[in-house]
């Protein structure tokens, strides 16, 4: 059955037009990812209007290609100019730029490109094998569980705002609220339309996404007149030739770093809310801790490039696993992909892979092929990148704002969508300036309907609220949502307050209760492992006389409202 689906998916993807569109997508993604201030999510969201008239397989393959290209493009700017193209490649600059300045830009680029490739392939394999398994687990979910899963996704995304947790939660609630404007889906009653017929249909969520994300980002990029008039080539050298053979030798020497970092990437991607911006720093940190020569990190060591680049390319495979198996986007980019699926009348859910196997496997296949295309096109796109770096930021911003206008109008052929774009652009810009993270708001907008519909279904089945606490999956998501919301507090007070000693053990004890309630064999086994970890941590702390730990070196704050 799987082989039949894979063959059918290959048939759908291996059409000349689709491959051509994918190549254009990868090229566009590589360039978009390479331009600082032009994020991957922005590139994917701007691709969306072009895919309306395409068949679903073709449209989604094009978007996946932009995504894969964008994930790898960030390293070019990071290594050659020291300015990361995307937040996902921040850690790449720690060692990539010093290596380039030492006279080895070709080797640094080669290591980055091939690490991205291996990370992407690892992630594609995980996507193909894990997504159908997770979808089977997802079939157990009832409306109570789904509602709590959405709440968990929102709280964990908000918690990434670190010390700005309240702002993150406000952003998430605002996103949920935006989605309530217009007719409600359950009863068809008008809400907050203030007598306007236009508002009755609500805000088109793609227009909201482009406004909140792309429009506001462009305005932030041109805020400083001097920076806006500068081109990237004025900030550093951008000439280099990729050294593939030497890079492959270096990667072969450090293959364990590739596997570890890609695994970190996939699991960070699966976790709702955490994206490439977190994964690349986490992988860099782990590589440094595991290295025999940690003192070389930051001076241009190859491990310091391999770790972030393998992990950030692996993230999207993880995010797509959650999206395709459960219908919950793992990050902003996956949220845009969810929008693309909805536009093509495909509603991701646990049944998605079994109901639309060809489409699902087409996405898997496209991810795989796009990764190969990325490696083939890097050298060529490096030359284009050199040309693009001569363009001034204000020119790019003006042109892209124009494209936003055309693209958003094409969504529904309605001028109101353009007004939605500009108003949410203003909201997004103000929120950015005031330090509100945009990711929770975007997830709130995307998940608002799912949350409300599942709450309505849950209450229609049983008006009693106790199933939220007695159903294992619902309880599990509630507990992890609570601990994820408390995580920033834990980080802020770690080493200073006594209660932080009990955070991890109690999180383990809490999580193992619903796992035991699920029954069967594997889950109680996992619960026992989690319980043992909790007991072990507690005993360790008791033996050390309840001494407070020193805080961690790295504070994993959200760098930007972008993922990937």
């Amino acid at each position: 059955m799987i082989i039949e689906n894979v063959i059918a998916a290959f048939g759908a993807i291996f059409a000349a037009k689709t491959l051509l569109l994918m190549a254009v997508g990868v090229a566009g993604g590589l360039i978009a990812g390479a331009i600082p201030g032009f994020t991957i999510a922005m590139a994917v969201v701007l691709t969306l209007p072009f895919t309306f008239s395409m068949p679903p397989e073709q449209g989604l393959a094009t978007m996946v290609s932009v995504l894969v290209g964008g994930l790898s493009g960030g390293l070019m700017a990071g290594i050659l100019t020291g300015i990361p193209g995307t937040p996902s490649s921040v850690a790449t600059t720690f060692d990539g730029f010093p290596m380039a300045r030492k006279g080895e830009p070709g080797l640094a680029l080669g290591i980055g490109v091939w690490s991205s490739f291996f990370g992407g392939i690892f992630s594609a394999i995980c996507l193909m094998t894990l997504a159908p398994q997770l979808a089977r687990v997802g079939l157990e979910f009832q409306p109570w569980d789904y509602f709590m899963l959405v709440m968990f996704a929102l709280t964990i995304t908000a918690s990434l705002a670190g010390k700005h947790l309240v702002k993150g939660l406000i952003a998430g609630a605002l996103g949920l609220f935006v989605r309530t404007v217009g007719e409600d889906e359950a009863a068809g009653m008008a809400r907050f339309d203030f007598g306007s017929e236009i508002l009755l249909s609500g805000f088109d969520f793609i227009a909201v996404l482009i406004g909140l994300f792309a429009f506001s980002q462009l305005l932030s990029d041109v805020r400083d007149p001097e920076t806006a008039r500068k081109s990237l080539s004025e900030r550093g050298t951008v000439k280099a030739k990729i050294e593939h053979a030497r890079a492959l030798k270096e990667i072969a020497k450090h293959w364990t770093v590739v596997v570890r970092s890609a695994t970190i990437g996939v699991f960070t991607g699966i976790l709702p809310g955490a994206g490439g911006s977190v994964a690349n720093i986490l992988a860099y940190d782990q590589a440094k801790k595991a290295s025999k020569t940690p003192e070389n990190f930051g001076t241009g060591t190859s491990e310091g490039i391999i770790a972030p680049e393998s992990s950030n390319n692996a993230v999207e495979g993880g995010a797509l696993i959650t999206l395709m198996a459960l219908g919950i986007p793992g990050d902003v980019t996956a949220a845009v992909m969810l929008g693309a699926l909805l536009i093509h009348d495909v509603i991701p859910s646990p049944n998605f892979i079994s109901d639309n196997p060809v489409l699902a496997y087409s996405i898997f296949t496209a991810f795989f092929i796009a990764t190969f295309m990325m490696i083939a096109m890097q050298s060529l796109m490096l030359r284009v990148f050199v040309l693009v770096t001569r363009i001034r930021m204000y020119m790019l911003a003006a042109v892209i704002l124009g494209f936003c206008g055309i693209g958003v109008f094409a969504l529904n052929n309605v001028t109101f969508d353009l007004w939605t774009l500009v108003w949410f652009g203003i909201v997004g810009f103000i929120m950015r300036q005031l330090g509100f993270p945009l990711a929770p708001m975007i997830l709130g907008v995307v998940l608002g309907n799912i949350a409300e519909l599942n709450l309505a279904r849950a209450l229609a089945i049983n008006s009693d609220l106790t199933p939220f606490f007695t159903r294992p999956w619902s309880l599990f998501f509630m507990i992890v949502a609570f601990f994820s919301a408390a995580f920033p507090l834990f980080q802020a007070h770690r080493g200073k307050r006594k209660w932080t000693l009990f955070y991890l053990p109690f999180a383990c004890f809490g999580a193992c209760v619903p796992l035991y309630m699920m029954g069967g064999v594997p889950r109680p086994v996992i619960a026992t492992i989690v319980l043992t970890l909790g007991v072990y941590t507690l005993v360790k702390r008791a033996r050390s006389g309840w001494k407070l730990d020193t805080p961690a070196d790295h504070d994993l704050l959200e760098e930007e409202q972008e993922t990937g």
Partner: protein
Amino acid sequence: MTRLSNDTIVAVVLLLACGVFFWASFDIRQPDYGVLLPSTWPRVIIAVLTLLSLIYLVQSLRAGPRNEEARAVPPGLKGFLTYWRNPIVCFAMFFAFLITLPVLGMLIGGVSFVFVLMTLLGGWERRQLATHAIIAVATVGSMWSLFTFGLGVMLPVGMIFNPFAL
């Protein structure tokens, strides 16, 4: 008078907005069927938002105005307008583009928008004007062609090309 921080002002605006929307939620018609009424979910969100805004207000009052806020933006209206000049120009131009869209249409309106915006942001020396004009025509023209001829999307024609468009 003690200066209020931006966070305090935002928290107050959020609280006011919560009040307005809570009031507006009473205008939602309630059907005789269904357990979850159409107004329940928005009210739950508004209640949560109100609680969070109150916490945000208390936090901002405790913290007081941040020094960097005062340092970044020059004082007075002129300083504010100078500091935020580019974003204000972008918004103003986009509003102008939207208002003139029924008359100019997407092609002429789009080209004009990109050209004027680039000129206002980048400068208007003769060489720059020529570069901006070429970029505006080439980029918007190609995008318009792609959507109109390639994807079959009916973009607004405007009264210049079609006087009966309105």
